[in-house]
C-alpha cells in the first residue's frame, strides 16, 4: 500500500487540501451539539425565543459553511484519488505492455485484466475513503472526547469503560472476517470458471451428454460460495448488535451520571443531551476507523497484486543500436534455449542456420520439437540461453527492440484479430498503408474474395477476437496483415492450418509471385506446404537433424521419408 502512495504525489495539493477542509468541516460538526445544548439550556428552558433564533441562525450558517468545506474536501479527495487511480492504471498498463511474453504468460490473461481493473478500482476507492475518513474519524473521536469532558470530567469513566470493549470486539471480528473475504473470492472465481467452461465448451458438454454432471459440479461450487458468503455475513451480523449495545450502554450511563450531576446541581439537562450526542459520535467514529481498517486490509490484497505487476522488470531489454536499412541476413549460431523455470533437456539445442534475403526456409518437426520456440527467439520474445542470433552479423540483442521487430512480419500460430474494421486490422501491419495496398495484400493472402463479399467489405466490423470470422478467414486476414508490413523477413508459424488445400496452394503461388525479394521462414505440418522451400530444416527434439531441399531429403533422410510416408506421398514420388 505504501509503495503505491507515491502515485498520489503529483496530486499532493489535493491530498493536503482535502483533509484541511475536512478539519474545518469536522470542527463545525463538533460545535453543533454544543450549540444545540445552548439552544435547549439557554433558549428553550429559559423561554428565550430570540436567543433560540439567533443561535439557530448561527448554527445554520455554520452548517452551510461546513457543507461548503465538506464539498471542497470531497472534490479535492475525489480529484486526488481518481487521478491517483488513473496514473496507477496507466502505469500498470504500460508496464504490462513492456513485459516479456513469459511474464504475461505466468500472470495469465484473466488475472492481468482483474489486476488492471478491479484491483485498481479497489485501491482507488480506499484512497478516496482514507482521504475522507482518515482525518474525520480521528478528529471526531478526539474532538468528541474533548467536548464531552469539557461538559463534565465525570463522563470520562463512561468512555474509559466502554471504549476498550468496543475496540476489542472490532478487532476480533475484523481478524476473523478478513481471511473469510479471501475465501469468498476464491469460491466466486470457481463458480465463474465453471460457467465460463460450460459456455465456451458447450459443444463438448452436449456431445458427451454431461449436462447433469456439470450441474452437479456447478451445484457444489455454488453451494460452497453460498456457505462461505453466509459465514462472512453471519460474522458481520454480529458486529452491528454488539456495537449497538455498547453505544446504548453509553447513553444509559451518561443519563445516569448526568442525573446525579444534575441532582447535585453541577449540570443542566442540555448538557446531558449534548453528552449523549458526543458519546455517539465517539463510538461511531471508532467504528468508522474499524471499517476503514477492514477496507484497507481488503485493498491490501489488491495493492499487492498491482505491485506484482509494477515490480516485474521486463526480462527482455531493448538494445540501442539502430537497425540497418538494408537487411543482409539472419544467422543462428549454436543457439540453446529452454523455457524459464523449465527443467530437463533444453527445448532447442545447438541450432545453427542462416536465412538470406529472398530465400524460403521451411522448418518441419513433430509437436514439441521446438519450432515455435525458434520463432519466439527471432522476435526476441525470449532470449536464448546460449549462442547468438545475428542480424546483419550483429547480435539481435544489441538492436533497438521495436525497430528490430519492425523488420519482421510474423503470422502467428493463433491468429489474433482485434475489434474494429477489417481494414484497420490489416493496417496493423503498417499504419501508413493505403486502401489499395490493403486490398492488394488481402488479394495475395487470398482474403480479398471473402472480404469483398461481406456487406461492408473492408469497412466490415470484426467482433471482439474476430469471433465473427471462421478460422480460415481469420488466418487469411492475419496473413494480409503480415504481408502489408513489407518487411524483409516474413514468418509463417504454422499459420495456414485452417486453410483448405486449394486456398493454401493459391496463397503460396501468390506469395512467390509478389514477394520475390522477401525471405520467408515457414513452419508447417504438411509436406506439401514446405516442399518448394529453398531449404527444409528437420527439427527433432530441439535439434536440427538434417537440412536440404525436398529432393535431397527424400533421398537421404529417413525421418523425412517417414514424415512423407505418414502423409502417403511415397507412392506418388515413386510413380
Amino acid at each position: 500500500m505504501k509503495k503505491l502512495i507515491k502515485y498520489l504525489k503529483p496530486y499532493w495539493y489535493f491530498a493536503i487540501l482535502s483533509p484541511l477542509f475536512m478539519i474545518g468541516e469536522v470542527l463545525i460538526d463538533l460545535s453543533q451539539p454544543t450549540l444545540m445544548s445552548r439552544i435547549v439550556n439557554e433558549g428553550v428552558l429559559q423561554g428565550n425565543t430570540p436567543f433560540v433564533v439567533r443561535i439557530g441562525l448561527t448554527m445554520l450558517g455554520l452548517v452551510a459553511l461546513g457543507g461548503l468545506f465538506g464539498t471542497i474536501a470531497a472534490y479535492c479527495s475525489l480529484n486526488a484519488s481518481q487521478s491517483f487511480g488513473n496514473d496507477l492504471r496507466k502505469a500498470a498498463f504500460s508496464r504490462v505492455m513492456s513485459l516479456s511474453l513469459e511474464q504475461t504468460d505466468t500472470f495469465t490473461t484473466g488475472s492481468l485484466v482483474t489486476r488492471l481493473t478491479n484491483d485498481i478500482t479497489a485501491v482507488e476507492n480506499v484512497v478516496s475513503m482514507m482521504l475522507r475518513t482518515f482525518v474525520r474519524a480521528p478528529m471526531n473521536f478526539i474532538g468528541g472526547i474533548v467536548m464531552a469532558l469539557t461538559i463534565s470530567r465525570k463522563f470520562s469513566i463512561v468512555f474509559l469503560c466502554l471504549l476498550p470493549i468496543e475496540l476489542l470486539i472490532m478487532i476480533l471480528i475484523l481478524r476473523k472476517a478478513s481471511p473469510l473475504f479471501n475465501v469468498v473470492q476464491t469460491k466466486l472465481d470457481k463458480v465463474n470458471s465453471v460457467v465460463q467452461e460450460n459456455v465456451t465448451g458447450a459443444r463438448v458438454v452436449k456431445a458427451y451428454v454431461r449436462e447433469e454432471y456439470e450441474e452437479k459440479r456447478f451445484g457444489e461450487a455454488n453451494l460452497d460460495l453460498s456457505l462461505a458468503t453466509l459465514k462472512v455475513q453471519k460474522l458481520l451480523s454480529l458486529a452491528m448488535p454488539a456495537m449497538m449495545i455498547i453505544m446504548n450502554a453509553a447513553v444509559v450511563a451518561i443519563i445516569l451520571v448526568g442525573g446525579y450531576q444534575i441532582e447535585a446541581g453541577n449540570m443542566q439537562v442540555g448538557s446531558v443531551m449534548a453528552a449523549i450526542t458526543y458519546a455517539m459520535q465517539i463510538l461511531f467514529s471508532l467504528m468508522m476507523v474499524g471499517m476503514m481498517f477492514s477496507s484497507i486490509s481488503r485493498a491490501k490484497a489488491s495493492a499487492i497484486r498491482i505491485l506484482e505487476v509494477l515490480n516485474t522488470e521486463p526480462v527482455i531489454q531493448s538494445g540501442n543500436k539502430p537497425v540497418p536499412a538494408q537487411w543482409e541476413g539472419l544467422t543462428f549460431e549454436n543457439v540453446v534455449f529452454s523455457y524459464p523455470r523449465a527443467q530437463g533437456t533444453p527445448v532447442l539445442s545447438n541450432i545453427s542456420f542462416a536465412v538470406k534475403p529472398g530465400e524460403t526456409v521451411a522448418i518441419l518437426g513433430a509437436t514439441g520439437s521446438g519450432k515455435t520456440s525458434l520463432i519466439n527467439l527471432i522476435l526476441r520474445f525470449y532470449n536464448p540461453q546460449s549462442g547468438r542470433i545475428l542480424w546483419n552479423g550483429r547480435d539481435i540483442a544489441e538492436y533497438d527492440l521495436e525497430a528490430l521487430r519492425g523488420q519482421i512480419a510474423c503470422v502467428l500460430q493463433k491468429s489474433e484479430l482485434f475489434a474494429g474494421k477489417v481494414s484497420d486490422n490489416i493496417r496493423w501491419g503498417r499504419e501508413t498503408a493505403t486502401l489499395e495496398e490493403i486490398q492488394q495484400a488481402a488479394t495475395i493472402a487470398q482474403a480479398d474474395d471473402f472480404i469483398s463479399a461481406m456487406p461492408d467489405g473492408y469497412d466490415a466490423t470484426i467482433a471482439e477476437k474476430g469471433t465473427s470470422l471462421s478460422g480460415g478467414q481469420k488466418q487469411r486476414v492475419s496473413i494480409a496483415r503480415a504481408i502489408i508490413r513489407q518487411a524483409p523477413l516474413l514468418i509463417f508459424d504454422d499459420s495456414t492450418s485452417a486453410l483448405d488445400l486449394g486456398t493454401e496452394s493459391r496463397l503460396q503461388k501468390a506469395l512467390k509471385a509478389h514477394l520475390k525479394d522477401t525471405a520467408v521462414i515457414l513452419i508447417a505440418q504438411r509436406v506439401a506446404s514446405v516442399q518448394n522451400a529453398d531449404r527444409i530444416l528437420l527439427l527433432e527434439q530441439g535439434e536440427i537433424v538434417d537440412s536440404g531441399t525436398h529432393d535431397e531429403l527424400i533421398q537421404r533422410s529417413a525421418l523425412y521419408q517417414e514424415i512423407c510416408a505418414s502423409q502417403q506421398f511415397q507412392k506418388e514420388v515413386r510413380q
Partner: protein
Amino acid sequence: MSQNEKRSSSPAGKPHAGPGSRGRGGMHAHMFAEKPKDAKSTLKRLIRYLGSDKKLLLALMVIVLLVTLLTLAGPALQAKAIDAITIVTTGETPRLHVDFSALFRALVLLVSVYIFTALLTYFQGIWAAKLSQNTVRTMRSDLFSKICRLPLRYIDTHPHGDIMSRMTNDVENIANTVSQSLTSMISGLLTIIGTLVVMLLYSPLMTLVSLITIPLTLLLSRGMARFMKKYFVKQQALLGELNGQVEEMVTGYKTVVAYGYEKKAIAKFNAMSDDFRKNSILAQFFGTVISPLMNLISNLGFLLIAVVGGSLAIKGAITVGVIQAFLVYSRQFSRPINELANLYAQILTAIAGAERVFAVMDEPSEPATGTLVPSTVKGKIEFRNVFFSYDPGKPVLKGLNLSVQPGQKVAIVGATGAGKTTIVNLLTRFYDIDDGEILIDGTPIKEFDRSALRKNIAIVLQDTVLFSDTIGYNIRYGRLDADMAHFENAAKASNAHIFIERLPQGYKTQLSESGANLSGGQRQLLSIARTVLADPRILILDEATSSVDTRTELHIQEAMMKLMENRTSLIIAHRLSTIRNADKIVVVDDGVVAEEGNHEELLARKGRYYRLYQTQYEGIAT
C-alpha cells in the same frame, strides 16, 4: 440507536462504481443505462424467488417489524428518562430535581429494550443473509441449468462475455440488493410510518413542523439523482471500454508485441483512462454534494423544531423531553426517506439485472426430444434431402443427400464454408434441420431421445475443449465411471500416455485456463483419448488432426484405425492419408454432395476431387 446504525450505509453518491463490477467490455453499460422494461412482472418473479422459503421470509418480516418498533421506542424511553430529570420543583427558586425512581424505571426499561433490540438485530442480519443467499443460489443454479440446456444456436450467436455477465454481475447485483435493501426498505417504510404515528401521538403541531422540510428533501434527492444518472451511465460505458481494451490487448499480446503496437495501445488506453477519470470525478462529486445539502436541510428542520418546540414548552404545551424526542424523530424520519431514494436506484438496477437473468431463463431450451432410447445403434446414417441455414435466407445445406453404412469410414472434403462442419452439427442435433430428414438405423433422429442419441456419437472437435481440472479428469470426461486402468489405456491408445507420463504430476497435472499449459498437439491428443474412452458407435472427427504434426499423426492414425474398426466414422480432414484410408470420400460443394466414391474412382473421374487433389499435390504427384 437506529440513526447511527443507518449512517453506515453508503452515501448517496457511489453505490454503483464499486470494485464489485468485475468482468469486461460492454456489459457495464447495462447497469445504469438499462431501465427495466417490464418492472412489475420482473419484480413479481423476483419476489417469487424470495418467497420460495415462506417461513424464512415471514420470520424475517416479523423480526424487521419488531426491530423497527423497538427502535422507535428508544427515543421515547430516552425522553422519559430525561423527563425524570427535568421535573421542576415548585418553590422559591425553580431548580432541577431528579426523580431517581422514575429515572431508574425508565433506564431499566431502556436497557432491556436495547438488549432485546440488539438480539433481534442479530437474527435479522442472519436471516436476511440466509434469505439472500438462498435466493441467489437458487437463481444461479436455475440459470446454470438453463445455460446447459440452451440450444447451441443461442450460445453461438450471443457473446460469451454477455452470458457470463448475467451469471456474475447481474446475479451479484440482485444478491447485494436483496441482502442490503430488503431489510432497509421494509424497516425504512415501517420507520417512516411508525415515527409519523408516534410523533402525531405526541403533538400534531410539532409533527407538522417536523414535516415541513420533507418535500425539500425529496425534491433535492430526486433532482440530484437525475443529474447523477447521466454521468453514471457514461462512467459505466467508459469502464466497459477500458476493460475491453485491457482484455483485448492482453489476450492478443503476442501479436501486439510482434507488430510493435505497444505504444499505440498505451496511448489509446491512456486517452480512455483520462476520459474515465474526468467523468467519474464528476459523477461521484455530485454524489457527495448531496450529503452536505441534506445535512443543511435536516439542521433547518432541527432548528424549526427547537424554535417552535421551545415556544410551546414555555407555554407549557409540551415538555422538554418531547422536544428532545422530536429532535431525534425528525432525523429518524428524514434518513429513511433519503435512503429509500438511494435504494430506488439500486433496486431499479437489480430489477434490470433480474430482467436480463430471466431473459436467458425464458429462452427456449433445446427442442423437445423424442423418446426412443436405443440400447446400441448399428450406425447406419442417412441424410435425405437436408436443407439447413444458420441465418434465414442464407442456406448452407441445399438438399444434401448422404448415406453411410454401419462401420463405414467416410471422409468429407470440400472448400472452407462448403458445409462440412454443418453436417456434424446436424447429426448430433446441435442444430435442427429446416427440411428433409436425417436417419440413424432407419429411424429419424428426431424420434430418439437426444441424450441417448448423443451417447452413441463421439466427436473430436476442431478446437479442443479442456476443463481446468486434472488431465485424468479431462480424459475421464468421456466416461465418468472409468477407472485409472481404463483411462490409462485410452491415453495409451491415443499416444497421449507418453507425454502425460513425462509431466511431473502425470495424470494429476492440473491444467491451467482451458489447458493453456499444453501444446496444441498435446491438447489434441487428450481430446482424442477422451473420445477413445467414450467408446461410441459413431465417431466424428472434425478436422481434428490439423494441429497435430505429421509424425504424431502417424501414431494417432494407428490408434484411430483401431478405434474406427466396426464403427461408423465421419471424418472431416485435410490430410490425404486420412482421406485415402476412407471407405468412401464425399465431396461437399455449395451445400450438396458433389461427388462420392473412393480415392481411385474419384481421381479417375477427373472432377472436383481430382482438381482439389491436383492443386494440393502437384509438384509431388509426378
